[in-house]
């Protein structure tokens, strides 16, 4: 039993055991286990429909687990719901601001809902709004804000009550690259300035790199969990891309001569080998065909995802949407789910 003290230094910020969530027949989350340490930036990575949002909803007490246990900031998400809520900040995928109120009114309302002591509301508000660069817009009505500004304001609001754990559900979805970058800047600044644990979901591979640790989720299960570097190292192969005059012959030759399985991707021959730099000289010396160009790259999280799930995140999402379409068709034609 962990009990947090006033400095926010309990053993784990989040701890999850055998967490399961079923929606009728659909098994959205199939028994996940993990712990997030205090002060960590922890990312949940996976295609849409992998169960990320369902997991986050259970952790922030918006959904009841079908079975299993979870505690956030030292409090059980089912039996100590209010204690969990006092200690977490939430930024949802969908906007939850009151567009009729000004930015400051939105934050004020939030502070009051959480019972923030009134003499601290103003300075805290200034701090969080300056952090996201919206202090000069505090008296503007939120309805006039752009999507990026709203998301920034939501982040500021989520921080109003100094939460121990900040949940960000796809904080950068639907934003332009520049805004995405600036949101990441805030998150990193935040981590430096405040004692806070950040739990986020994303399906952008490049963003997951910013996390201390990543859990890769697919079909309601965690298939891998480690730091981005360790995950990439775990793939064990570098990606070698060569351009030849005849790709099919090259693939056959690679298999025959070196025993590597290559395939064509975007007009070039691609394959994985354990140590790319050492393989390339051998390739030039021994390969029976002329090579026009060659490049070696370290594995990316895309490759990690690929190696654990056998598919790229984009393909996984296409499958999901196909599945969704099929379900919708069934529903429209009167079939049962």
């Amino acid at each position, binding site marked *: 039993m962990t009990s947090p003290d006033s400095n926010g230094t309990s053993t784990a910020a989040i701890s999850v055991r055998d967490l399961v969530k079923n929606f009728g027949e659909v098994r959205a989350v199939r028994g996940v286990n993990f712990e997030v340490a205090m002060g960590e930036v922890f990312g949940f990575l996976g295609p849409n429909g992998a169960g990320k949002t369902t997991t986050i909803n259970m952790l922030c007490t918006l959904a009841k687990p079908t079975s299993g246990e979870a505690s956030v900031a030292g409090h059980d998400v089912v039996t100590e719901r209010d*204690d969990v809520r006092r200690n977490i900040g939430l930024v*949802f995928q969908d906007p*939850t601001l009151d567009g*009729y109120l000004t930015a400051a009114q939105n934050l004020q309302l939030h502070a009051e*809902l959480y*019972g923030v*002591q009134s003499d601290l509301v103003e300075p805290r508000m200034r701090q969080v709004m300056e952090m996201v660069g919206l202090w000069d817009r505090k008296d503007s009505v939120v309805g006039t804000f752009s999507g990026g500004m709203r998301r920034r304001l939501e982040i500021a609001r989520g921080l109003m009550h*100094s939460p121990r754990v900040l949940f960000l559900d796809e904080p950068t979805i639907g934003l332009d690259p520049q805004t995405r970058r600036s949101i990441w800047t805030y998150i990193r*600044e935040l981590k430096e*300035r405040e004692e806070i644990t950040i739990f986020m979901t994303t399906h952008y591979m490049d963003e997951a790199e910013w996390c201390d640790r990543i859990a890769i989720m697919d079909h309601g299960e965690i298939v891998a969990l480690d730091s981005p570097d360790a995950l990439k190292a775990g793939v064990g192969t570098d990606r070698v891309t060569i351009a030849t005059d005849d790709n099919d012959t090259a693939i056959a030759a690679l298999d025959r001569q070196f025993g590597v399985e290559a395939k064509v991707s975007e007009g070039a021959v691609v394959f994985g080998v354990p140590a790319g730099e050492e393989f390339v000289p051998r390739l030039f010396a021994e390969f029976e065909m002329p090579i026009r160009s060659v490049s070696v790259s370290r594995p990316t999280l895309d490759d990690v995802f690929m190696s654990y799930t056998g598919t790229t995140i984009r393909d996984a999402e296409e499958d999901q949407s196909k599945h969704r379409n099929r379900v919708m068709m069934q529903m429209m034609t009167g079939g049962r789910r």
Partner: protein
Amino acid sequence: MSTTTDTRAETTEAAAGSGTPIVRVSVPERSLRSELRAIKIVWRRELIRYRSDRLRMVTTLVQPFLFLFVLGTGLQSVAAAGTHGVNLKTFIYPGILCIAVMFTAMFSAASIVWDREFGFLREMMVAPIRRSSIVIGKCFGGATVACLQGIVIIVIGPLVHVPYNVVMIIEVFFLQLLLAFSITAFGVMVAARIKQMQSFMGVMQMIVTPMFFISGALFPVAGLATWLAILNRLDPLTYAVDPMRRAVFSHLHISPAAQQSLNSGVTWFGWRVPTLLEAAVIVILGVVMLGIAIWEFSATE
């Protein structure tokens, strides 16, 4: 329980960067006080929303004004024979007081559907407060806003030959308050189930319009055809319109015959239902619906 209820600031120097102190705040544990505060916040938000929505102030008054001035004037000649010299506008005035409040209360309840559509409901639902505080705050807010609209109708009384009278105004105001509360509670109860704005307004119209017509807001309730008399006594709104009419008519200088035929009052098997009991009917229904609304919102995840 070792969690802190310390409500003082804990100011620490920033570890890196600008050097400005970090303002750390803490969230107190949930208590009755925090619930009352939450109710107040939700209530106040309704008022802020109302103030910023001038269009709504006007639009919700259109219908009552149409009934009062257009219908009241237009049907005057037809009605003259039966009103014993009382102006038709004066006669329907108490009923109009009720519908002005009803329409506003309905719109107030609709704001919970908007809040859900625009996501703000979620912000309230995840705060460390009870769902009941949100629902109660909404109902109080709706009731307050509806009463503010009702005051407009009270103010125009002299235009339809209802003179100002302190006792009458106080009575009318409290009756309006009760009605506004109960209608908002009803609306919030419906809103717990119906998630789309269009369907919500449709359902509310479908329920509220017949209630309004059957309530006797536009006709005396004595000597009705049996089927209508039965429906009338079952209609909750009847028990708001009747005391309202009693409050207004007791301060009018009209003939006893007119009083008798226009303000005969609601009877149960010949027994005239007293004002207090009628008010109690409205309050009890309101509280029951509030209870159902709270239960429904607490049950949803």
